[in-house]
């Protein structure tokens, strides 16, 4: 589904050049739920931004469903983001002036899809994520967990190839965090969604099929879940401890 080959990215501040991603290569398969973890400065968020094409990379290729998305023009990028990628942000990025229902509609409204089909899909997604009761409410009137589930529903509206989630549980309490992870799991199970999530939260990552651990812009280790979730979480914590403490998202 997603193939990243020899990806390189540097940042320049004044005369100083900092390599952030170094020859990064990996693959994510259809229906997989993959997390990226790593200490501060390891390049997690930069990787996500490169894949989503929010920022350009220096060299290497990114293939989505076999198609290289590195050299798309403005219009093609818009279509890519609307049709093939779904986004979930740490701070939800919902439009405050629209209700939950309307926010979820947005990707299909932009794509000019038939109304009846769109409304049916929204209702289905709301019911799937348990937010049907708050459909007419505005973002300011609902909880953080509900907002993020709304964002997940919105990301799934156009049946994207992959959902890119940037610290989706970063602003949530543990109960809300669980609800959001459940939403991803349900999306995977019932809709066959592929999820690529950047997180610093070992608990959230422990629900994933696979975890890519980055260090200094390169893959330090890849862990595939073969055991029970709790055991997988212990494995993750061990690796992170080895890397030198807790990570964060300040990249």
């Amino acid at each position: 589904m997603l193939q990243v080959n020899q990806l390189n990215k540097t940042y320049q501040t004044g005369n100083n050049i900092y390599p952030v991603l170094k020859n990064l290569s990996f693959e994510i398969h259809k229906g997989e739920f993959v997390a990226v973890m790593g200490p501060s400065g390891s390049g997690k968020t930069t990787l996500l931004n490169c894949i989503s094409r929010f920022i350009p990379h220096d060299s290497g290729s990114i293939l989505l469903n076999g198609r290289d998305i590195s050299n798309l023009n403005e219009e093609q990028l818009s279509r890519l983001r609307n049709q093939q990628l779904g986004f979930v942000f740490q701070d939800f990025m919902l439009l405050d002036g629209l209700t939950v229902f309307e926010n979820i509609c947005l990707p299909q409204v932009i794509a000019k899809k038939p109304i009846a089909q769109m409304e049916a899909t929204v209702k289905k997604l709301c019911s799937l994520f348990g937010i049907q009761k708050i459909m007419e409410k505005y973002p300011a009137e609902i909880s953080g967990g509900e907002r993020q589930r709304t964002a997940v529903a919105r990301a799934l509206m156009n049946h994207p190839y992959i959902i890119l989630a940037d610290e989706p549980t970063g602003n949530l309490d543990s109960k809300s965090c669980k609800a959001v992870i459940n939403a991803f799991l349900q999306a995977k199970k019932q809709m066959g969604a592929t999820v690529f999530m950047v997180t610093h939260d070992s608990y959230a990552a422990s629900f994933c099929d696979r975890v890519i651990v980055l260090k200094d812009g390169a893959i330090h280790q890849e862990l595939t879940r073969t055991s029970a979730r709790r055991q997988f979480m212990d494995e993750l914590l061990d690796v992170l401890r080895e890397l030198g403490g807790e990570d964060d998202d300040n990249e």
Partner: protein
Amino acid sequence: MMTMNRIFQKLRGKNTGQYRMLGFCVFLSVLLISSFSLMYFGPTVQDFLPEGGDTRKMASLLLAVTAVGCCVFTLYASSLFFRYKSREYGILLALGESKKSLGKLLFWEVAGVTAAATLLGLIAALPTSWIIWKFFENFIISTNEMTYRFGFTGFLVGTGFALLLSLLLGLAGRRFINQSDIMDILKTQNKTEMVKVIPSWTFPVGIVLTVLGLLLAIGLPSISVNLFYQNISGICNFFYVMTLAGIYLILLNIVAQNRLGKNKEKFYKNMVSVSMMRFFAKSTTRNMCVIVLLLFVSIFATFYGLLYSDSTGLNNTENTKTFALHFPSLEHQITKEAIDKTANKHQVTVTDFGEGEAANLVISYKSRDMTDQGQYITLENEQTKLALFLSVDSYNSLTGRQADVAPGTYKTVTITDYKENIWNFMDGLWEAANPVTGQSLALSYEGSLEYDALAKMSDPYAYILNNQDYAALTDGISQDYMEHLMLFNTTDYESSYLFAMDLLDQYVNHTTDLSNHMGLYDFWAEKLAKERGEDYILANPIDLSMDNIMLLNDWKYAPDFMVVLQQDYMQLICIYVMLCLYIFIISLAAVAIMTYVRSISIAASNRELFVHLDKLGAPKAYQKRILKSQLIKIFQYPSVLGCSLGLLFSALMCWFNDGRYTASELHSLGILLGLTILVFALLYVIYRAAIKQAEEIVGLK
């Protein structure tokens, strides 16, 4: 039905405040410029202002400054509008909406707001200009010439300005769309402006540059003229750049300088608030500079208006009589009987009537001129023109005073409180001659006498001679060179307007070609030009009719009726004061909007800082103090700097104009000081509103 249009409609509904603010700024700009244009390009003002004169140039310049001011604050308001839009657009871009369709949408939204606001502004301009006109009419005696008349040109100018504004807003919108970057909007990458350390010397150096620049730009030309007789005002304008650099340094220091020095307590107290603007130091400083300049413009425009409105000289009856006439003796003009008769008709009592003769004699005198190279040169003019001479007896009978002039000397008649300028010398006359016989007499200066009505009758001055000298010099003179003078008062000159106009009408009706000459016409100079076979440039006659509202401004034998002149003058100053008032209002409106918008921008940019402070356990009171201490800088420093510079500039202009402060200048400066306090009060109100909004933005409410 969920469509894109409905979504945008909902979003507009949510952000009506932003649309209202943009609309209001466009409305205000169009209203101010259109009402200004309606007044300025209306037939009343256009008929009144001399063709190609300085007044027109100045008024056009003021209109241009006003238009620039309006554009600045409207564009500034649009930047806030776009800022609010950026989050919506960022999310939509991330969800796959194309820049092209968002650009199209933004165009229609901005075009809709602009069109509606422009239309309202144009419609409201007419009653606004009429109301302002009526307000000023209260200060003048209303005449037919000063009735408000509608002129279509004003609307054309207003519409032209609206189109320009729409174009600028369109360009700003286009720039916004082109620069919209999802990363900036989604804040996943911290974008920081590298800040160099601002050295502490910037503040004192800034102060020195600012003050020195002003002193040199204003003072040096005056010093150069008086000491070296060289005009260098063009070069000296360069020193204003010094002042600008100084203002920039002062503000840069204030915005970003906070280093751990001796006062550690102050450093730690301000540490957080200074950090709020540090990453925007350059743009904030530039913004403050514009605010300083706008305040400077508003203060100076007011001062300019005040100087024009100074009519103290016109009200001073100490050294004059309120009615004065002088005309060629050969002219069969109105007589004392006609004056008395007219006075009776208008129930006015004529008092202090004095009548006498004066002779136009050829003078040899010193004067000063400027060469094309800007060099001042002193000229010794030998028998090149005429000036009016009175005998002591004639002077005494006309004025009712007792003058004494020794043989072989003269006294120069000046206006009250006269200060010699660079061009003329009160003691410059050295010889007078009879234009018919050629009989001349060397004369020396004995002093001056102040008498307004007589001083205005002759250029460069009128002179008083000893009776014997006067008799000797006028022996054999023809009546062509003689003038008849009449001076008198009325019991209440302020209520003698109708009498004065009646008298003026009669005077004009009695006038023949003998008196039909421009203000600076000289019979002798024309004769010399003819002898040399040249054309005399001041030979053209003028339009001698009561319909010519410029009649009294450029007529050699114009009657000096104080009540009429005051009326004319008041009309002129009303126009000036109105124009200056407009500049003041517009500059202040621009300042108000810019300071408000900047405050909101800073609050919005630092929203996260307050979240962090909250997490760090900072009490609300502490957070509020930080916000206030930062925002107040945007108001406090530019307002103090801008107003002080305006005051300093005005004070320096007065001083270097003639090396002194007249009572009216001091009075004007006093009013300006009061006005500065009002400006501070207004900015305080804006500050309160900005703080309220900013607290809401950063979640302190």
